[in-house]
C-alpha cells in the first residue's frame, strides 16, 4: 500500500489522468485497503479547495442561459416517449388495433340487430302461416268428411218466396257432423243470421247458425233428421224457428 501511495496513482486518479485500466486498478486498491479512502478524500478536498481558490465567476447572464438549456428537455418529459420510435409504433399499433376492434364490434352489433329484426319478422310470418295451415287443415278435414261415402249430400230447396235460394247440406252419417255450403242466399243485416234446423220427430232442432257467404262451414251434430230447414233469425239464433222466415226446406 505504501508503494501505491508513493506512486502518485491516487493523485492522478483524482485528477482524472488515468486510463480505464489504471482506474480499475485504483478502484481495486480502494476496495482492498479501505484506509486509502481517507487519503482519497483528502486529495479530493485539496482539489476542490484549489479549484475554489482559483474560481472565476461567470457573468450574471450565463446562469439563466445555462439553466434554461439544462431544463430544456426536462420540461417536457413526455417528449421522450414520442421521440422513441419503438414506443411510437407500439402506441400507433395499439390505437389502430382499438379502432379496428371498435369497427368490428360495431359491425357485429349492427348485424346482430338486423338479425334480431329478421328473426322477429320471420316469427310473425311463421305465425301467420301456422294459422293458415291450421285453417287449411280444417278445410281439408272438412273436405275429407264430405267425400266420405257415408256423407249425405242434401240439396236444400228454396221456398216459393225465395226461389233463388240455394244451399247444400253435407251430413256425415259417421260423425254426424253437418256442413253447410251456401250457394245463394240473400244478404242479411247485422241483426240477423241464418239458422239451420233439423226436423226430428216433427220437432225442429237447432243445427247451427251461419252467414249467407259461408262456404263449407261446419255446423252442429245431428244424430237423426227427417228434414232440414233454413230460417232467418236474429243474430245468435233462436230456440224455435221463425216459420214465416223460412228460406229453404228439404225432406229426406
Amino acid at each position: 500500500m505504501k508503494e501505491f501511495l508513493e506512486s502518485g496513482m491516487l493523485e492522478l486518479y483524482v485528477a482524472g489522468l488515468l486510463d480505464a485500466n489504471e482506474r480499475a486498478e485504483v478502484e481495486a486498491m480502494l476496495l482492498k485497503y479501505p484506509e486509502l479512502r481517507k487519503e482519497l478524500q483528502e486529495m479530493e478536498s485539496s482539489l476542490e479547495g484549489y479549484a475554489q481558490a482559483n474560481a472565476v465567476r461567470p457573468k450574471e447572464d450565463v446562469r439563466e442561459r445555462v439553466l434554461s438549456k439544462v431544463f430544456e428537455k426536462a420540461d417536457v418529459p413526455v417528449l421522450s416517449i414520442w421521440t422513441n420510435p419503438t414506443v411510437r409504433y407500439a402506441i400507433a399499433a395499439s390505437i389502430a388495433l382499438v379502432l379496428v376492434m371498435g369497427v368490428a364490434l360495431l359491425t357485429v352489433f349492427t348485424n346482430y340487430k338486423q338479425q334480431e329484426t329478421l328473426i322477429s319478422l320471420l316469427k310473425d310470418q311463421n305465425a301467420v302461416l301456422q294459422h293458415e295451415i291450421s285453417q287449411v287443415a280444417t278445410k281439408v278435414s272438412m273436405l275429407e268428411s264430405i267425400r266420405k261415402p257415408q256423407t249425405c249430400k242434401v240439396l236444400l230447396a228454396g221456398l216459393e218466396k225465395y226461389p233463388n235460394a240455394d244451399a247444400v247440406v253435407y251430413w256425415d252419417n259417421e260423425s254426424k257432423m253437418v256442413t253447410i255450403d251456401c250457394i245463394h242466399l240473400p244478404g242479411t243485416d247485422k241483426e240477423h243470421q241464418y239458422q239451420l234446423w233439423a226436423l226430428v220427430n216433427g220437432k225442429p232442432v237447432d243445427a247451427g247458425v251461419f252467414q249467407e257467404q259461408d262456404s263449407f262451414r261446419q255446423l252442429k251434430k245431428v244424430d237423426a233428421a227427417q228434414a232440414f230447414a233454413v230460417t232467418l233469425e236474429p243474430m245468435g239464433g233462436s230456440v224455435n224457428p221463425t216459420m214465416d222466415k223460412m228460406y229453404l226446406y228439404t225432406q229426406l
Partner: protein
Amino acid sequence: MPLFHYVLAKNKIVLSEEQLVDALRNRQRIGMEQLYDRYSAALFGVIIRIVQTEEIAEDVLQDAFVKIWDSFGSYDASKGRLFTWMVNLCRNLAIDKVRSKDFRNHSKNQDIEDNVTAIDSFKNNTYKPETIGMKELVETLKPEQKTLIDLVYFKGYTHVEAAEHLDIPLGTVKTRIRMSIIELRKFFN
C-alpha cells in the same frame, strides 16, 4: 404562503452533498440550481484555464452543466466526490473543445506561466490572503515539470503524446509526473 418563502430565502437552504446528489438523481431543479450557485465559479476557473477565451469558456460551462444533468446516472458516489466527477467532466469537455477544428490554429503553445498571468486578470476582485494562488503553486515546480503538467493536465495530452511533443522518453514523462505530484503534495501539506 409569503411568510414561508421569506423564511426560506432568509435561511438560504443549503443542501448537503448527499442531499444534492439525491436531488440531482431525482431530477429536481433545486439540485441543479444549487450546483450552479456553489460550483460554477470553481468549474469555470478550470475551464477558462484550458480554453483561455471567456466566450468559449461560457459555451463549455453550459455544455458541462447539461452533461452533468443528463448523464447524472453515471456518477458513482462510491468512486469519489461529486466535485471531482464534475471537474473531470469539465476538464474533458474543455480539452475536447481545445482540440477541435480551428481552435488549434488560434491557440499558441502558451507556457503555463503565461496562462496564469492572463487568467489572473479575470479573477474576482475579492482576494483572500489564504488563497493558494496558482502562481505560487506553479513556482514550487521545476520548469520541465511545469511544462509537462501544462501539457498533460491543461492541454489533455496523453503520456505518449507528451513524450513525442517534448521529444523525451515515455519513462521520463512518467517519472517527471510522479515527482511533480510529490512536490505538490508537499505544498498542499
